[in-house]
């Protein structure tokens, strides 16, 4: 009996591993699990402290400005890191315009972008941002835990980061994740 148990052990391990992989693959196909996404440790924490200059026509802003706006407005806002050289940012742009039209305040930060290029980007495609700052060296982005563009952070009325999206906000993501969250925070 003991011997049989020992001999069945490799089979048992294989079955466990197989069942595990089956579950993982199933969730991956559903879309509820992504081994490649990196969660943010800033969720549930207040926004990091920063001050950024602006672009040509736009004044920059700081963390204090953000918090002041949140206190005044009493509603959550989106901070969006973008760049003119970033293709997924172009893909995300129409959805940002839609969200902005629906009343979500969006403040943009141009990451490692020449000021003229970033200005040109919003001038050409439309401006979903109420305020825009420029982070050319990219240091402030690192304080936010940004590792690529586009990345968006939803900050609630109390100044706490509630949601983070690494990658473009597609209409599907906005419908499934962002808008429901906005409703609960309102």
């Amino acid at each position: 009996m003991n011997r049989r148990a020992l001999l069945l052990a490799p089979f048992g391990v294989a079955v466990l591993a197989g069942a595990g992989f089956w579950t993982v693959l199933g969730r991956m196909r559903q879309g509820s699990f992504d081994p490649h996404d990196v969660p943010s440790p800033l969720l549930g924490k207040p926004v990091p402290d920063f001050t950024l200059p602006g672009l040509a026509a736009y004044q920059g802003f700081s963390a204090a400005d953000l918090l002041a706006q949140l206190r005044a407005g009493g509603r959550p806002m989106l901070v969006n890191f973008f760049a003119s050289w970033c293709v997924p940012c172009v893909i995300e742009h129409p959805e940002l315009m839609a969200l902005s039209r629906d009343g979500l305040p969006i403040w943009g930060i141009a990451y490692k972008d020449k000021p003229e290029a970033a200005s040109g980007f919003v001038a050409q495609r439309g401006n979903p941002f109420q305020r825009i700052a420029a982070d050319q060296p990219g240091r402030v982005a690192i304080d936010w835990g940004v590792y690529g563009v586009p990345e968006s952070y939803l900050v609630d009325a109390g100044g706490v980061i509630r949601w983070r999206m690494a990658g473009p906000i597609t209409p599907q993501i906005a419908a499934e994740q962002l808008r429901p969250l906005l409703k609960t925070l309102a």
Partner: protein
Amino acid sequence: MIPELGHFALALACALAFAQAVLPIWGAHRADARLMRAAPALALGQLLALGCAAAALVWSSVADDFTVLNVAENSHTLKPLLYKVTGTWGNHEGSILLWALILALCGGAVAAFGRGLPSALRARVIGVLGGSSAGFLLFCLLASNPFNRMWPPPLDGRDMNPLLQDAGLAFHPPILYAGYVGFAVPFAFAVAALLEGRIDAAWGRWVRPWTLASWSLLTGGIALGSWWAYYELGWGGFWFWDPVENASLLPWLTGTALLHSAIVVEKREALKVWTVLLAIGTFSLSLAGTFLVRSGILNSVHAFANDPTRGVFILGLLAIVIGGSLLLFAFRAPVLAPGGLFAPLSREGALVLNNILLCSIAAVVITGTMYPLVADFVFGSKISVGAPFFNATVLPLAAPIFAAMVVAPGLAWKRARLGPALIRLWWAAVAALAVGLTAALGPAQAFPALAFGAAAWMILGAFAEIVERIRLFRTGLGNSLSRLAGLRLSVWGTTLGHAGMGVLVAGVAGMSLATQNVVLLRPGQSVEAAGYSWTLVGLRDRPGPNYAERVATLRVAPLGAASAGGSFVMEPSRRTFPVQRMTTTEAAIETNGLADIYAVLGEERDGAALMRLHYNPLAPWIWIGALIMAAGGGLSLLDRRARVGAPAKARTRAQAEAQAPDAGSAVA
């Protein structure tokens, strides 16, 4: 037309594989000689059909047939011919076809070279190989068919990843896969033995050449991959503990254990259960590695297809092959007659320790590779497990192996005394100590010094067996020399295999002392680094077939040497591929066998070039060591006494008739 013929050949091969899986095993079960005899023919037929399919794909690539989807996605009219041919296996579908082709080659090889095997065993082995082939070909046809067409064809293809357009690519995958997939044959032997209910010394002898061949090829394939990364990726690294690298290392670890375990089966008919489990395990790891790389589950720089749907199909295949064989093992292993008893301190005992240590290393590598997935899925915690973890956990497990592998060949079978085995190594120990101390006092710190000492221990100790056999210094020189000439090849094989490992360790230890300098040079400027003077002669453009290249010409001379003599030219470059929009660096490497000098061209600023100049002591020994190991395996393979077609054919036939009496009567 040709792609359609290829497609048909692929389907034909699949059908033949199914026949190959079912008929011979049924024949062996029923002792039906005709069905058993059909096995080699079916295996060769499948090989032929699959060969035609592969040839059709290569032809489509060479002829720039962009109606074939695979060619359109991975090739380009301007791609050099060599890469059109070798690039067929640089993508997902092509590599699956290569897998299947090599599996078919294994079946064909057993058919061609396995004539000395008893017909029932051969039939079962070919049958099991056919089963694996059938599964793979079905996957190929249904989920990753290289012959899918597209209409209308694009004007030109999307070209292949520039990193892969390299001579090293031509040889790394086929050799690696031949090793990987080659372990299907020992796997088939193990399953056949479980079906038959018997493992004996003869089985051990038959399985050995196939294990040796696969192991040597896998060693060579891994080394080639590592060398390719070293010179192509441009920063002197050679092993990154990347998940795909680990996936190729795992079968190597258990395959090494299998190789040594099979010796015990052959010599003492012991360790049968270990050996069967290792044979099943090694091929299972090869299969599982294939699955992981193609499922999108892993974060890896190598990962092919991020397609969970394909992953599900392969998972099903794995469930049948691995689950089935392990279940068979659980129920049939007790039927295998228990082997010879042995004391814990004996050659068998040392080999059991070897098995345990190698399998422990494999377990740690599996755990480290899969842990990020487990932590994410089960705990929701996102972590990384990288080189620092593996280095810290694998090295302490490898160290006892390095120490013991020198002593173990000197231990007697069944019951040994440690004293004599150690005493005959006194000179190797002294030399190792001397090397270690010299290194510690000289350039190295503690860790590398230890490694150098261990390397000396391994290299010198490996020759102890030969010294013993030729009775060096104990009889006359003439006698020793004649004994040397008469030594079996397998003794040389073992010696080279073990010494090669030592050379590899020395190479890795040397690389830990590597230095690098980052400099900004204008044309005409010189800099001194690592005992050489480096002068940037000039920068120029050089056109390539499908890239634009910027070349730097460096004149390098050892310091202190005469100005003209002893200097040489190095030309590192950067290549920009317009179609894929990627830039690769081509490092320039000069080697004198004992160290590598390595120069990389970086960005240019105002006419000056950023260059990185490396000095890598003993770097070539890493790959020379691996080559020596593989050569050792090859030498053992050439030893006539270890091969199936060995002398005493009459005895083999009599053995065959004794073991399969019912079949024997029908065989001529």
